[in-house]
């Protein structure tokens, strides 16, 4: 299969996968839980269609791309915000703790993202235009931040005894793969220049196809079942223990108000 044919096939698979996900979310009612996710795939369908009808060298293509790319980035940010909300959905008691964790993760993600934008790559091969370079850097920065944010959020929340719904676990894993592969694609393009663009685009499209079909097959209404909170202790025993821990909590509150010598 030639490079062009492979690329077209992947574009078709992306379009097909996006359409099927939107239909599945709509028909199963999951769109109510995943509103941004549903809206993103509804947007993806026309966003995957227009490049098939426009010449890559035309001005219309360029302006449509420049307009659509920031919209995609805004969708990415909203998608991760939705994921954060879904992770803490079953845990009302963790709203404040979750907010602290979100601030910490956000600070870490922005710091890492800024650090990755510092190096200036100077390849010998021709580069994309300055305007597109800025757009690529923004894309890389945002996607790195989002991937690191998800990772830090999970790392900090994993210290709490919480259990995630299967669909949320699927979302977190696929988002990470999706954003990190995109970050890597932009980075490789920056390092190798225009000479590598076709190969990188094909590789990125393959990962995107895998991600989209993973969402398509792994997200299901059954995956929305709320986790069972098994504690390994009898309810009566647990009740007494929790009462004691409430007392411990009050004690801790008092301790924190006193000066530790």
């Amino acid at each position, binding site marked *: 299969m030639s490079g062009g044919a492979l690329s077209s096939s992947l574009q078709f698979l992306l379009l097909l996968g996006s359409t099927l996900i939107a239909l599945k979310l709509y028909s199963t009612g999951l769109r109510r839980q995943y509103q941004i996710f549903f809206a993103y795939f509804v947007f993806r369908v026309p966003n995957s269609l227009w490049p098939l009808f426009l010449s890559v060298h035309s001005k219309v293509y360029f302006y449509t791309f420049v307009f659509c790319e920031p919209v995609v980035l805004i969708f990415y940010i909203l998608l991760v915000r939705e994921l954060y909300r879904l992770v803490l959905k079953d*845990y*009302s*008691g*963790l*709203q*404040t*703790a979750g907010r*602290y964790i979100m601030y910490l993760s956000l600070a870490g993600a922005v710091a890492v993202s800024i650090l990755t934008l510092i190096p200036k790559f100077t390849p010998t091969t021709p580069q994309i235009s300055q305007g597109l370079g800025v757009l690529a850097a923004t894309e890389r920065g945002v996607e790195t931040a989002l*991937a690191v944010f*998800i*990772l830090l959020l*999970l*790392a900090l*929340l*994993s*210290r*709490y*005894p*919480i*259990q*995630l719904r*299967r669909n949320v*676990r699927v979302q*977190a*894993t696929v988002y*990470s793969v999706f954003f*990190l*592969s995109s*970050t*890597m694609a932009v980075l*490789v393009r920056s*390092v*190798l220049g225009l000479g590598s663009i076709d190969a990188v685009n094909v590789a990125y499209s393959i990962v995107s196809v895998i991600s989209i079909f993973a969402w398509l097959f792994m997200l299901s209404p059954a995956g929305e079942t709320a986790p*069972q*909170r*098994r*504690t*390994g*202790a009898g309810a009566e*025993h647990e009740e*007494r*223990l*929790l*009462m*004691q*821990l*409430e*007392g*411990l*909590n*009050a*004690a*801790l*509150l*008092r*301790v*924190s108000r*006193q000066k*530790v*010598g």
Partner: protein
Amino acid sequence: MILLTAIATVVLALIAATVILVRKMGGNGHSLPVTAEWISDLSTEQYRPMLRLLDTTDIQFLRSQPGYTRQMESQLRRQRVQVFRGYLRALTADFQRVSTALKIVMTHSEKDRGDLASVLMHQQLLFICGTLSLQCRLILYRWGLGTVDVTGLVRIFDRMRAELCTLVPSALPSAA
């Protein structure tokens, strides 16, 4: 090429880390890390020896003895540091179990426990700073410089225990 390999390695490591974390959070529930008996037994008494384990009085006494050598002092310091680290590990384990128990209270709560989240984070930060400071002081002590004071860390437990007994006195005997 080296740069690309490095980028690919970092990306793969991040993906692997995400998968591990997601799997960890998909387990079939968590057992309570503490029992009612354990809370009843919660006592700082077992950490009392820590308070005087690195006391300079012992070193001064050793120096005053006939036949004292620097090797003897060095050996005593090394042994004391080893024992102290054992106590510190136990103290840290107890602290983590209390923290985990409090996290369980938060996850089971039907309403937001912002009060508990703040206290827990504050206490954890204090404890981390305290243990880090102790580790640095232990290194200095090992080389004959400075002293180590664990009163602050142990006092947190002491107050917690005293407060707990006054807050839930009836629950303790029935739990045993």
